């Protein structure tokens, strides 16, 4: 039965149903139900399924940056022990699929678009045989004759306006800058970043008649089946992907990539299951990079420090023909006031691997720069940086005039400041010295757009009084198993032990997938609506109104009458599919999650080494669905902020676009020793415009601005303002004050 609820989310659902339920599991810091499997090594990731008789494929990467494959010397390799095939198929993909594309990327590996692009797959009986054969495979190329740019700053690079990102223009920014009481005009740089999920991309592919089955590590399965099907020119309904556990994604597994298509083609050619696991170096070199950025920020204020002009212009890069351009100014559009404004992004066409989504595309690098620039502005105006931010929060989104659905930024700044001890910060730099270390504090706002996307889920209330939640939604470490169970348990009045959640299989209803922080609220809303439909049926059995039906611990009560669910169900299951589609609420309101970061750093007076000593984040993202897993999402984001501030940087050879630091020894993600005890404050909030759950996204919020707080703390510690991330020693050292001078 369908509820009279429109699928399309056009009007905020103000009923706030979850708060009227009686079970009391929603929001609780419950352990992840799959936790015991993960800590005992018994959760099965894609490469680990016991598929009978599978053989191993290893990709071969191009040794040139641009050109065409002339000859593949197959025969010597085919004569090596165990080698079964050398494949270089027109359907194999040159690039990774962008998130939510739902269609094939650029195909045919006979052309080389960037250095180290896959050009062939070698298949052998064992991994060692395939790896050695892949290394031995000789490929001859014809180099491209057309000159191409490898450096986004090269004058040869063609620069375009992205088709889907219109500049935001309001008033007259130049005039505002001229008339400002205080202003800054600064240029910042951020380097490319890698997702570097711990599980490398892996697929086992096998065919059952004309049906293709993939055990593949992907984030958005409903889109991924379409992408695979389009690559292979087959109907999507004949493709099934199974991925109950995904070892991290961070954008890199949004769309399908090289190994999945190659494995499917090889499995067909050999009529055997084929496994292709990309090496760590291959993942770095061929999947997705976050674009480097050059950002110009202009801020103009009146005498009271109120922003009257705001400019944020970004230069990013991607391969020719790619629609994606890092949406650097996404949060700048709504965060601070200033009607005179110019926000725009331009993209340079260069020859490096595909640029795409890496955790929090846009805000991850846009916010860290904007927030560092805000710190510079606070200094110019001469007011506390927390106060500057509070003074500049507009009532409606500048230029477009949209109202905010909800915004906990003031609360985040105030509660974060109180908990952190911001009042102990000394406004001028170089005031605190402990031994060889300068100590300083910095603040930044956090902001990340909120999105609701298309999602379905099925909930079955079984005759035995337990519930089953099913969707192809993935849990990539996000806590999806936990929160979907909590939503169903709350709505159906069941203890969490009575709810089972099954995910990551495209034979189940299509969830939103894990990306853009929208998985929990979108698929969670679908689960909630399926439960509403079940409650309607139960209410009929109870001769009550669904809104007034109370269920707790499997006992339904209405008007003084009480009956167990098992009794009401009378031996029959109730199964309902719930769904949600984004609607008018997305346009009628500016929706975002907000927060604030406070960091204390130590800067070594002689070497310029920066250590984060402590960090506090306060976040408001609507309803908290599980306080434990939500906190972990925030923690993880802050760790990414530390990496982005201090160590992470993709280094490219500008002569050929070759990625130099293509592994975890040379691309430095934070390790235990880099991360102090982090403090997270979750601010309870209800946002009906965001979703029927009154929840917003939290998966990416913790990174959005975090690196800015660290850079600002470095400035406060030692007086050095670095406008090029990461803040490595070489950039800090030349500007340090005399280390032998005592604190000013």
């Amino acid at each position, binding site marked *: 039965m369908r509820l009279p609820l429109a699928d399309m989310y056009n009007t905020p659902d103000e009923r706030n149903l979850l708060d009227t339920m009686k079970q009391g599991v929603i929001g609780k810091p419950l352990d992840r139900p799959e936790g015991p499997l*993960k*800590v005992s*090594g018994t959760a099965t990731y894609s*490469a*680990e399924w016991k598929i009978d008789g599978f053989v191993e494929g290893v990709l071969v990467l191009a040794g040139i940056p641009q050109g065409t494959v002339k000859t593949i010397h197959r025969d010597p390799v085919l004569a090596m022990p165990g080698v079964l095939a050398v494949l270089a198929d027109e359907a194999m993909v040159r690039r990774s699929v962008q998130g939510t594309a739902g269609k094939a990327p650029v195909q045919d590996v006979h052309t080389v678009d960037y250095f180290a692009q896959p050009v062939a797959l070698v298949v052998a009986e064992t991994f060692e045989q395939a790896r050695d054969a892949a290394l031995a495979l000789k490929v001859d190329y014809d180099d491209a004759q057309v000159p191409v740019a490898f450096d986004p700053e090269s004058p040869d690079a063609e620069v375009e306006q992205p088709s889907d990102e219109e500049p935001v223009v309001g008033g007259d920014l130049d005039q505002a800058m001229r008339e400002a009481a205080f202003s800054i005009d600064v240029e910042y740089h951020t380097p490319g970043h890698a997702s570097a999920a711990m*599980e490398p991309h892996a697929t086992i592919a096998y065919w059952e008649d004309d049906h293709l089955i993939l055990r593949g590590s992907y984030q958005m399965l409903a889109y991924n089946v379409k992408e695979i099907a389009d690559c292979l020119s087959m109907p999507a309904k004949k493709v099934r992907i199974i991925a109950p556990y995904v070892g991290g994604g961070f954008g890199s597994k949004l769309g399908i990539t090289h190994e999945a298509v190659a494995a499917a083609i090889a499995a067909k050619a050999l009529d055997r299951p084929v496994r292709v696991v990309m090496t760590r170096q291959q993942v770095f070199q061929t999947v997705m990079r976050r674009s480097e950025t050059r950002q110009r920020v202009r801020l103009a204020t009146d005498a009271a420090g109120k922003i009257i002009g705001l400019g944020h212009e970004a230069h990013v890069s991607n391969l020719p023909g790619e629609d994606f351009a890092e949406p650097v100014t996404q949060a700048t559009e709504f965060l601070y006031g200033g009607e005179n404004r110019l926000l725009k992004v331009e993209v340079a066409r260069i020859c490096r691997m595909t640029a795409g989504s890496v955790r929090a595309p846009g805000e991850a690098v846009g916010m860290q720069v904007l927030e560092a620039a805000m710190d510079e502005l606070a200094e110019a105006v001469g007011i506390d940086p927390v106060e500057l931010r509070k003074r500049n929060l507009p009532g409606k989104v500048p230029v477009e005039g949209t109202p905010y659905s909800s915004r906990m930024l003031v609360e985040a700044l105030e509660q974060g400041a109180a908990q952190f001890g911001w009042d102990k910060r000394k406004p001028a730099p170089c005031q605190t010295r402990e031994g060889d270390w300068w100590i300083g504090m910095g603040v930044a706002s956090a902001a990340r757009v909120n999105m609701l996307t298309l999602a379905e889920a099925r909930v079955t209330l079984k005759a035995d009084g337990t519930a089953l939640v099913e969707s192809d939604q993935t849990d990539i*470490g996000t806590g999806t198993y936990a929160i979907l169970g909590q939503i169903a348990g709350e709505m159906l009045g069941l203890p969490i032990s009575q709810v089972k959640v099954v995910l990551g299989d495209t034979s189940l209803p299509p969830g939103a997938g894990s990306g853009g922080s929208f998985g929990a609220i979108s698929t969670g809303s679908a689960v909630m609506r399926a439960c509403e439909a079940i409650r309607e049926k139960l209410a009929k059995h109870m001769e009550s109104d669904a809104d007034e039906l109370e269920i707790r611990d499997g006992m339904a009560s209405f008007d003084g009458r009480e009956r167990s669910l098992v009794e009401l169900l009378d031996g029959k299951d109730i199964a309902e599919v719930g769904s949600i589609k984004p609607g008018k609420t997305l346009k009628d309101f500016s929706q975002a999650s907000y927060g604030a970061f406070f960091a204390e750093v130590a800067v070594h007076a002689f070497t310029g080494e920066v250590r984060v000593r402590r960090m506090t984040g306060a976040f408001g993202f609507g309803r908290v669905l599980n306080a434990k897993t939500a906190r972990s*999402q925030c923690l993880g984001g802050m760790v990414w902020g530390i990496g982005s501030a201090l160590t992470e940087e993709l280094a490219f050879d500008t002569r050929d676009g070759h990625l130099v630091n293509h592994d975890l020894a040379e691309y430095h993600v934070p390790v235990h020793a880099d991360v102090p005890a982090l403090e997270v404050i979750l601010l309870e909030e209800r946002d009906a415009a965001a979703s029927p759950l009154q929840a917003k996204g939290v998966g990416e919020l913790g990174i959005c601005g975090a690196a800015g707080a660290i850079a600002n703390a470095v400035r406060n510690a030692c007086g050095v303002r670095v406008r090029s991330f990461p803040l490595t020693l070489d950039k800090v050292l030349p500007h340090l004050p005399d280390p032998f001078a005592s604190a000013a």
Partner: protein
Amino acid sequence: MVSSTAMAVVNGVANPLPADPRRTLLEWLREDLGLTGTKKGCDHGQCGACTVLVEGRRINSCLSLAQLHDGDEIETIEAIGTPDKLAPLQRAFVTHDGFQCGYCTPGQICSAKALMQELADGWASAQTEDLTARPSPTPEELRERMSGNICRCGAYSNIIAALEEVIAADADHQGTVA
């Protein structure tokens, strides 16, 4: 060639070592013995996801060829505890949410188990001030000693909280935990 009698004892069971000299200890555990709890994250000793205990000491199993382990006793995550019977260390990881995606987790736990023994044996680290005293499990010591295990989800502070709880319980009970 490896002798046909070359064996290693894995989680208490003797197994013949593989014939292919290129096979790493990691591949052997995962592919030949089906012990996929040990993860391959980089295959170059850079991430720690493949950490196992060999003769009680933690190593990156991807950096060691299987044939080198004739006669060795090897312990993997599967022997530390099962979903129905978790070891205290595993239980603490669940309680403190010391993981998200779970891929680095078996390596973190194997590393943490060995770390506790190293502390008990008085091994110093770069963080240890007094090299003659038994090192105390300060957060700095624990972070230093766990830094060979990368967690990209960023569960570090929860992992340290889990370790602190288990080490404190261990001290209280004077027994061996984990």
